[in-house]
């Protein structure tokens, strides 16, 4: 059974078909790149999988379970975490609290225990805090835990988003342009980080990326989308030679004349 299985997925925004008849399967442990020109519907696929927008029709299955009608927080708890293309951190709070708030879901103390600050509540918070620090160390933000999230530089904000997603201990991680706006040395570090966390957490990763270097370097398989559909699929080297892919990115020879 594939880790993630998308069948006949449609999403229309008014008259615009953002995703139409999409089929896609991701096997457990794969690192799949999702590429395509701007407006191809890649981010919409992520929004559909994580439940942020409802599908018009079609089916999404995660580990054999249908995700239809589930709220985003329920889908997250099943084990699908994501990052956002246009970074969505909790800006006016600390770097540590950004991760801690996700780990909090695993604590079991209730409202009364929180209000009275019982021994158990304090102990559980301390444990979660240690865990949050470990996650921050992993993405290289351990020394900045007390700063406000909005004060971090761009690349660090992207890494914090990854730490926040990992705090849910997901099975499937959806990364939406993690290398956007990074310089070459940051990109190299990021590729190492993605490989590292994938191995450590036993993750399946689906990655949207425009920097072909990252895709070719990391992915075992590449899926190309255009106009809401999969137009090609294969190994990174196959895809680079694929005529329909070149067409989607560069246009058809002579079509502009």
């Amino acid at each position, binding site marked *: 059974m594939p880790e993630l299985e998308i069948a006949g997925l449609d999403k229309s925004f008014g008259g615009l078909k953002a995703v139409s008849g999409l089929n896609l399967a991701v096997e457990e442990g794969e690192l799949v790149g999702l590429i395509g020109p701007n407006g191809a519907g890649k981010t919409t696929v992520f929004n559909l999988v994580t439940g942020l927008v409802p599908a018009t029709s079609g089916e999404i299955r995660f580990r054999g379970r249908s995700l239809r009608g589930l709220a985003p927080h329920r889908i997250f708890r099943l084990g699908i975490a994501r990052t956002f293309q246009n970074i969505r951190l909790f800006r006016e709070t600390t770097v540590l*609290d950004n991760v801690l708030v*996700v780990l909090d879901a695993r604590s079991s103390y209730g409202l009364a225990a929180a209000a009275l600050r019982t021994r158990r509540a304090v102990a559980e918070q301390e444990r979660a805090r240690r865990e949050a620090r470990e996650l921050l160390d992993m993405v290289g933000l351990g020394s900045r835990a*007390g700063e406000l999230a909005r004060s971090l530089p761009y690349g660090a904000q992207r890494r914090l988003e990854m730490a926040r997603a990992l705090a849910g201990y997901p099975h499937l991680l959806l990364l939406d342009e993690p290398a956007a706006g990074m310089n070459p040395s940051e990109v190299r570090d990021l590729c190492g980080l993605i490989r590292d966390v994938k191995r450590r957490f036993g993750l399946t990763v689906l990655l949207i990326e425009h920097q072909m270097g990252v895709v070719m370097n990391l992915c075992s398989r590449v899926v190309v989308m255009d106009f809401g559909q999969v137009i090609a699929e294969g190994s990174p080297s196959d895809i680079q030679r694929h005529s329909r892919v070149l067409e989607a990115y560069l246009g058809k020879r002579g079509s502009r004349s």
Partner: protein
Amino acid sequence: MGAGWRVLTRRALFPLAATALYLAVRVLAATGLLNAYWRLVLDQALILAIAALGLSLIYGFCGQFSLGHAAFYGLGAYTAGLIGKTWGHGDPLWFVLSLLAGAAVAGLAAVIFGLPVLRLRSDYLGIATLGFGIIVKVLMDNSNKLIPATGGATGMTGTPAVADFTWVFGTTVLVIYLVRNLVHSRYGRAWVAVREDEVAADAMGIDTTRYKTVAFALGCALAGLAGGLYAHRYPFVHPSSFDFLKSVDFLIVVVLGGLGSFTGTVVTAVAWVFLLEVLRSVLGQAFLDWRGVAYALILTTVIILRPKGLLGGKEWAALLPGEERGRRRDLSA
């Protein structure tokens, strides 16, 4: 030994400061330096602080804009006042029960009213609470048709004045303690996440509807609790004390204190009441006419000078739980 002693003093700081403050007021009152009028003002300030802390949870921490906080304050005042008047007759046990009942009625009304609205994102709650405030005011004005004891539009008298400074101060300290603990728990962090980015919070496993409802119910229950104290401190309860302008009062206190700072709310609530009283004594009868101007001037000045409020989302460290204080210090080093 040094470290252990420091932990002990840190833990003791909050109760010690509260006790010192309490004794100071009692001494000032006994020596006559603080006359009955200013004691009344002080109690009013503390009651406002309790209700404003409620709105601080709802708006300052969870980011849900409410324009009807005074309605929940009024529900608590009428509920507790009626119980005190009918059965209490000054008995402290009945007094405590009536306070709890006032808080419960306000909290329950918030859940029933909030659930359908809080499922939605964005600012629908502001409009809905505005409507709720108007409905409650009309109900209070006409309540004597159902329960004659409320007096309807002429106001309710006869509630025993049980709530002296000790009660009001004790309740305020207890509420500050509980609120402080909550905002530094998983609840506080989830509320802030909802305020900062509701979509991201939802996508990161936070049940946003549930946390918003809890914040709204708790915040309104605090307003109800404050209302109960009010009814037992100033035994003339009138619907006009719970109108839209009163809701604006709470909102001003929370915004001026800084969103996401409970110490800012407390300090601003007290300062606000005293400032208005000073203005009242300076301007005399003209105060009523100039009140609107004063409000606008104060708001505009503070927002220009300190756009994030007096404390701007920061907390007064002395009131934080011990580990939180230590943590911030380590991290800034």
